[in-house]
């Protein structure tokens, strides 16, 4: 290197590994965001409970699930639709009919008097709602043959 001679060669940092890492991070966030928006309704404030079991650890709930979100006023939320108890009961009946139809098509007989539907009702009720409102939804489910329930709560750390 001679004094007074300026090298005109540009520095060329290798950006490929950086790009690799950034793409991996993007992939991670895309996947996580998809999972988070699955069934969670942000309008529901769940009650706290320390002994609630984590969802993944519970083998007792069936694959077939119906998620019901109940707000602080005791209304059933289905997407943007807000339903009172009568409309909610109708919606639950419609869901039960679909389950029964699916059972019939797979050759399983369902006796409404004694049988219970294999679907697990995932009940996400707001902590400010009353037991009476939650019971109304539970009774509507029971009258259609749903027996398995999972009451959701936030796990206290």
């Amino acid at each position, binding site marked *: 290197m001679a004094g007074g001679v300026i090298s005109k060669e540009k520095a060329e940092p290798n950006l490929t590994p950086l790009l690799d890492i950034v793409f991996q991070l993007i992939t991670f966030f895309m996947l*996580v965001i998809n999972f988070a928006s699955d069934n969670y309704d942000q309008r529901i404030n769940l009650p706290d409970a320390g002994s609630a*079991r984590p969802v993944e650890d519970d083998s007792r709930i069936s694959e077939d699930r119906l998620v019901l979100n109940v707000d602080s006023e005791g209304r059933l939320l289905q997407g943007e639709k807000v339903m009172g108890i009568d409309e909610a009961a109708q919606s639950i009946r419609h869901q039960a009919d679909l389950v029964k139809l699916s059972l019939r098509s797979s050759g399983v007989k369902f006796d409404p008097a004694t049988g219970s539907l294999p679907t697990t009702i995932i009940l996400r009720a707001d902590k400010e709602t*009353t037991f009476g409102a939650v019971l109304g939804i539970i009774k509507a489910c029971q009258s259609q043959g749903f027996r398995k329930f999972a009451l*959701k709560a936030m*796990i206290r750390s």
Partner: protein
Amino acid sequence: MAHKRGGIEMEGPDVPVAPMLDMAFQLLTFFVLTYRAAPVEGQFVMNLLPPQAATAMAAAAAEPSASNDLPASLRTLPVVLRGDDQGRLAQVSIADLDVSNDPKALAEELDRHFLDPDAPFDQTLIKVDPNLRYSDLMTIIDAFTDAFVRAKKEPKLSFDELRAGDGA
């Protein structure tokens, strides 16, 4: 970009990586800013049977053990929850005895019923004031589940609506 291979200088395609990196960082910023961690939700799984026959059907669902062939009504611990005007938990009665709703006192009382080998209880029927807030009911469910787990029993809970005259 020049590469040397076997002593021969080869000219490769000069792909500009910087714009791609710019885009990637913009995407990354978008996802980081819109990311909301999935809440840690848990659940209490239970078989809830129609209220009219809750005790009898709970007994049918429960597998009868050889050591415990008592009727369901004797194996079921009756609990009554009453709320105040605001729907807050005001009174807890276990087996017709008023219990403090302080979590520690409640846990001790439940242990007295479930840990005692002579006590027949392996399930509970909770009669709940319809005006009681769901969060307060969950506190009680939480306490019962803990007590069942401490007693190494499978939690078996069922609910019914508290009607006028019940548990008075």
